[in-house]
C-alpha cells in the first residue's frame, strides 16, 4: 500500500520536498515504513537510525500498524526551545 509521509527539517531537506510517498506491505508497521523509506529515498539513509514517526499528533513506535488513511509524519530528533 502507498503511504504519504510528511517530512520536516533535515528529512525534508534531504528529500527535497514536504511530502513523499512510500510503498509498504499491506498492514505494514512503522518499522516497515522506516525500512522502505530509506530504500526508496536513499538520500535519507544518513538519518535512518534517527527517524521518528508520528501518526496523527502522537509518536508511534515500531510496532504500530499503519493504514493509508493515517496522517503520517517522519522527522529527525527535535531541537526546539
Amino acid at each position, binding site marked *: 500500500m502507498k503511504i504519504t509521509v510528511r517530512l*520536516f527539517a533535515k528529512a525534508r*531537506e534531504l528529500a527535497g520536498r514536504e511530502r513523499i510517498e512510500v510503498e509498504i506491505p499491506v498492514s505494514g508497521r512503522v518499522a516497515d515504513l522506516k525500512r522502505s523509506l530509506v530504500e526508496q529515498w536513499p538520500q535519507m539513509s544518513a538519518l535512518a537510525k534517527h527517524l521518528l514517526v508520528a501518526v496523527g499528533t502522537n509518536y508511534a513506535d515500531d510496532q504500530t500498524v499503519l493504514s493509508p488513511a493515517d496522517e503520517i509524519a517522519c522527522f*529527525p*530528533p*527535535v*531541537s*526546539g*526551545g
Partner: protein
Amino acid sequence: MIQLTHDVIDYQSVTESVRSDQAGAVVLFLGTVREMTAGRQTVALEYQAFPQMAETKLAELIEEAKSRWPIQNAAIVHRLGRLELGEISVAVAVSTPHRRDAFAAGQHILERLKEVVPIWKQENWADGTTEWVHPGVNAISQSQPDQAPVQ
C-alpha cells in the same frame, strides 16, 4: 496560553496571562538566540515546526506539569521562522503558590519541550553554511547533500 507564532514574542503578555492573586511566584523563561555555540558564530536561527502536533504536545506538557506541581497557570509561546541574534525563540511562564514549585515546573517544561515537541532549529553560521540541529545525529553538511552517509 499555547501558541506558535512567526511574530516577535510579547513576553509581557505571556507573563500577565499566568499572574494570579492565588500565586505567590511567577517564573518566566526566555530562550534567546545566542551568538556563540562551541566556538562557532551564529548569525541567525530558523525554526520549523509540525504545528498541529507541536501544539498538542505543548498542551500535554502543561497538563503533565500540572499533575506534578500545584500550578495556577502556565503558558508557552514558541517562535517560528528566522530569528536574529538576541531574539526570543520561546517563552515559558508558570505561576504557583510558592517559589520552588515555579522554578521546578518551569525547568521541567523546558526540558520536556526540548525532548518531545516537534520543532527544529537550523543554525545559520557566520561562515555562510546552514545546519539542522538534530541531537544525536552526526552533523550532515547541507552543502554536501550527495555525500555518502557516515554510519
